[in-house]
């Protein structure tokens, strides 16, 4: 079973420092196997990332990707953002999550912190419809520009619904 080295003391340090600096912002934290995951308030995500980068030495942003949690009972449609951070010096990785209602998909841009997020944000916009306020060039990246939907949302069918050249009876639709 491959696993990252679990750095309990570093995890605890992040918990303490985040709790002290942003007492209201951390909504939940869980340990998923070998990585600590923090769910944070969307409004403070940008500040938290800046804090983690500058104060706690998380110098490298590994991934940023969108999520879609379809509506369940007692919960509306949510869009999410998942970010993996990596501190090279401490060999420490953490995961950050922030959710936002589908109706209000705006996040601040993180391109001022890491230019690497430029395309990752465009990808999240392209596939989930998340918008990033202040992004220098927020347009679709992998899909064509006039694509009519956000295809990674759970309500978008896998088979392209706009195609007319396929016979439904043969493809089980």
């Amino acid at each position, binding site marked *: *079973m*491959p*696993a990252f080295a679990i750095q309990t003391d570093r995890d605890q340090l992040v918990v303490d420092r985040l709790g002290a600096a942003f007492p209201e912002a951390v909504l939940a934290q869980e340990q998923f*196997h070998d990585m600590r995951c923090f769910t944070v308030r969307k409004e403070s995500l940008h500040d938290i990332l800046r804090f983690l980068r500058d104060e706690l030495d998380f110098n490298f942003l*590994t*991934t940023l990707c969108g999520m879609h949690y379809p509506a369940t009972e007692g919960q509306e449609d949510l869009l999410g953002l998942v970010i*993996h951070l990596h501190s090279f010096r401490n060999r420490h990785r953490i995961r950050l999550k922030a959710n936002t209602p589908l109706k209000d998909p705006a996040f601040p841009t993180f391109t001022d912190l*890491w*230019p690497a997020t430029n395309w990752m944000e465009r990808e999240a916009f392209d596939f989930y419809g998340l918008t990033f306020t202040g992004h220098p060039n927020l347009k679709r990246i992998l899909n064509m520009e006039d694509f009519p939907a956000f295809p990674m949302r759970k309500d978008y069918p896998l088979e392209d619904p706009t195609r007319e050249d396929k016979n439904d009876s043969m493809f089980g639709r």
Partner: protein
Amino acid sequence: MSTGIAKPDFWQHDLVPPAEHKELNVLNLGPTHPATHGIFQNVLTMDGEYIQSAEQTIGYIHRAFEKIAERRPFYQITTLTDRMNYCSAPINNMGWHMTVEKLLRIETPKRVDYMRIIAMELARIADHIVCNAVIGVDTGALTGFTFIFQDREFIYEIFEEICGARLTTNMGRIGGFERNFNDIAWRKTKHFLDYFPKKLKEFENLLMRNRIFMDRCINCGPFPLDRALAYGFTGPNLRACGLDYDVRVMDPYCSYEDFDFKIPIGQNGDVYDRFMVRQKEMWESLRIIRQAVEKCEKMSDKTTFTAEVPEWVLPPKEEVYNEMEALIYHFKIVMGESDVPVGEVYHCVEGGNGELGVYLVSDGGRTPFRVHFRRPCFVYYQAFPEMVKGIMLSDAILSMSSMNVIAGELDA
């Protein structure tokens, strides 16, 4: 009358016209241009031969892997990973399998790890052969390309013996391999270790200290380390900038900690450094393979090729036809009905181009809830405009091929 050698008078003129006469051209490089080695479009604003700015369009071979993966059982996703970085498909396969193993908490035996390492390092050599040979082609030395591709072919023959396929290998299974390496695979691997160093040296002699090649590559498309980190560079491109970040050492997976190898680094991240880092990595990969083969030979156990996970490893056909348990497992595995825990994991391997990560979220169903692939090409290719700003078009072509941007990985 002067008897000296006449100097051509164009040396007297500035190659770049003075600012007041500047006239910028817009040039479309791609989408299908033979020099870009793939389907990349770059809209370049040119000042004569010099690039002022570049804007990329990507997604020409986007195949919605992440969407498809949400509707497929785990084994059917392996074939998607083949088609990301198709130059080193086994690394992608293993990366995916190891992610799933992390989710399922499957412990693999040492012999499986070593066999995986053999496959992965062979794939890394094949990947680096392509990139370095193509750097040679773009500097005008086609010989190396035709010379060394024979050995890539030989690596594919080994893959053929291991798993039956060559390019898109679909190699391995969750918990190990589908079958043991056969004798031919071992013999061919050992033969490769015997003869390849000599050929690699010959290839190196052709380019490494070649004056034309050096003049062409040194200081071409350099990239400073701090910018490289900000842009999320990983793999040989980051190491060429001078930082020894390698997932194999930083977060050892698959028993890489049992091996003795070095991480080559460059200085200023130019084309020559990237070439040299890849070149040296091939030597290190050879060392790793040699050690892995030795370790496998020393083991008394010669038959283990998979972990003890009957829910995930297809039973042998003769058992499927004769025993009820085996038939049930076979059916469950093929239909993707084995139990999966709820959870989320991130796992990464050192791919040919850098940190190839998989973020896998499972809700306990037969398919993942979400799979996100961290494709190193996608992350670092966005630095291309900054890298080529102010350099010449022919150098930009070279910078691009030395970054080893693989369209399949870029577009997913």
